[in-house]
């Protein structure tokens, strides 16, 4: 039966060796690609994918690459390891150490997939006295449409960056209109048109009527981020007819009416809202005398949770983060141009314990396997 043949192949030790060899090559290729593409794109294309369809620049020539992705190699290794236990290793008390070691490796592999999907890293930039109930992604952007309601709440429809490509029409039951993406610039700069210029603006409606967009190549380094822009059009009844420019550079939302509903649109870093507020009370930034080298920096913040009526002050400094609501707030950075600004790094990682558990299981399993083998060896020696 073909399935049995396939299972035989999947449980073979040759497949394990092949997967490990492919993983080594994948890491090597990913490292080379990182130079041009940057770490975030490489992570997505090479390691968080089933198949790598990409290219490498070798001696100024683009070489196309089709290779098994990190998820495919990882999943085959998981299947191979589990199936091998059923077919070859079996379940004996003498092999409990081996079983624990392999289980630890499985926890590590599965844990990494969980971390990829559940781990969120973002930041909050606060000026002294400012409060925020959201953090912002370092890399991802969102096209957000906010319905301004008369109540205490507004409704946000957040469209991920993956939907933003030329020609795409986006629709959602919460929006009484459709959005067509006429142009999308992954990285861009915007400029104001001169008052005397005859050049037409990037869009016909809103602030975009007086701006031009300059497309830029995508950022590949980790210390900078792309600043996307898009030209969009709303389709539907009672919507303003024309095009709008949405851009990472436009902080203030552009307002429009659809019938008697008022909406605002933004292209901004993806936001992660929280049911509580963080207020920066005081930011201390000490430098070594006579230098610009940071010595110590700390943020005194107030945590206010209207749901639990909690209100307390916390001091966040290096190696002393605030852990709250499943998230960890580290003293991330500061603004060299404004000594009242603190930047907190916010990490949400529900699977953070898996590497520790995996390492403990592998270590304990190997020790146990060694002890059991040693005792069996000693017993055999005594018999002789």
């Amino acid at each position, binding site marked *: 039966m073909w399935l049995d043949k396939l299972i035989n192949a999947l449980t073979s030790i040759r497949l394990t060796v092949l997967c490990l060899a492919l993983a080594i090559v994948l890491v090597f290729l990913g490292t080379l690609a990182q130079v041009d593409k940057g770490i975030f794109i490489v992570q997505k294309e090479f390691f968080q994918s089933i198949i790598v369809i990409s290219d490498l620049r070798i001696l100024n020539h683009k070489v196309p690459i089709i290779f098994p992705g990190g998820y495919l190699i990882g999943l085959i290794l998981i299947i191979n390891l589990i199936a091998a236990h*059923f077919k070859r290793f079996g379940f004996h008390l003498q092999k409990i150490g081996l079983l624990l070691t392999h289980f630890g490796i499985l926890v590590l592999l599965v844990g990494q997939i969980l971390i990829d999907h559940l781990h969120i890293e973002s930041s909050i930039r606060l000026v002294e006295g400012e409060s925020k109930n959201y953090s912002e992604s370092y890399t991802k952007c969102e096209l957000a449409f906010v319905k301004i309601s008369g109540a205490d709440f507004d409704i946000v429809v957040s469209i991920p960056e993956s939907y933003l490509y030329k020609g795409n029409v986006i629709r959602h039951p919460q929006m009484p209109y459709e959005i067509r993406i006429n142009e999308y610039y992954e990285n861009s700069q915007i400029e104001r048109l001169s008052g005397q210029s005859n050049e037409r603006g990037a869009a016909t409606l809103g602030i975009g009527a007086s701006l031009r967009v300059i497309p830029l190549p995508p950022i590949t380094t980790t210390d900078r981020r792309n600043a996307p822009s898009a030209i969009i059009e709303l389709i539907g009844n009672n919507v303003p007819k024309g095009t709008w420019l949405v851009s990472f550079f436009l902080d203030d939302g552009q307002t429009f009416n659809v019938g008697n509903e008022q909406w605002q649109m933004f292209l901004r870093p993806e936001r992660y809202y929280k049911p509580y507020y963080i207020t920066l009370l005081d930011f201390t930034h000490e430098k070594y005398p006579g230098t610009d080298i940071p010595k110590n920096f700390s943020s005194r913040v107030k945590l206010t949770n209207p749901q639990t009526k909690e209100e307390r002050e916390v001091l966040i400094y290096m190696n002393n983060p605030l852990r709250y609501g499943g998230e960890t707030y580290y003293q991330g950075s500061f603004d060299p141009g404004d000594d009242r600004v603190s930047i907190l790094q916010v990490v949400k990682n529900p699977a953070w314990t898996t590497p520790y558990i995996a390492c403990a299981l592998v270590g304990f399993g190997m020790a146990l396997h060694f002890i059991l083998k040693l005792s069996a060896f000693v017993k055999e020696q005594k018999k002789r």
Partner: protein
Amino acid sequence: MRIGFTLEKIIFLAAIALLTGCGKEDIKVYQIPKEPTVAKPHQQSQEQWKVIGDVPENWEEKGPSGMRVAQYVVKGKDNSQGEVAVMPMVGLRANKNEILAIWKGQLGQDVVEKSERVKIGEDEGELFDLSSQQPTSPELSQRILVAMLIKDNVNWFFRISGTSNLIEQSKPDFIKYLNSIKIISTSQPQREAITKPNTNANIPSSNSKSDFKVNEQIRMVGVIASAGSYTMFFKMTGQNSAVDRHKDELNLLNHSGFKNVAG
């Protein structure tokens, strides 16, 4: 090992299901509490003006916020609500039609535009009346009145917005408010050093440096240099970290010479 093989098959099929189940991110919908209208601390420090005028009784003051130095909530007789905002903009280069396009965009399609001269304090400005014809009902259709004034190189915008009914009721009050306005500067304006005319125009005689945050990531550092009878503008724009690394290079301008190559 029969049971083992059955389990292997289940794992294999589950893995196939997992492989095919990887999709793209979904559109998210969520509710957020309205953001407070208090000014951000870094904006308060940039406030330079105070606007005083005869505020009608049905206008409720909201305090300055963002670019707005004054704003009010206007309450209509039919419980409808509108908004008055006063916004100064320095160094605006967009023309009148481009600016009006911003507010026309808010009103939707079939916007009718009228304009008239209006007294704003002791000066004369222009009042634009923008009204949407969609929907046709005056309780639902939106209307905006914008008064524009250019004074001391600052573009002033006085805007009232709301339903057509509300704006019709509030227009006399809004014009009275415009007539009574006094603009008070709350900070000393920075003045460039006036330099003697220099025909050689080859040494920067004075310069001033400004540092703006366009948003949380982007920053702009500008230098205005006077050389003889010329004023030059140097601009460095980019990501916060990049501008920070290179901004000191602008200080090199202090040591640069400018030559009038136009003859």
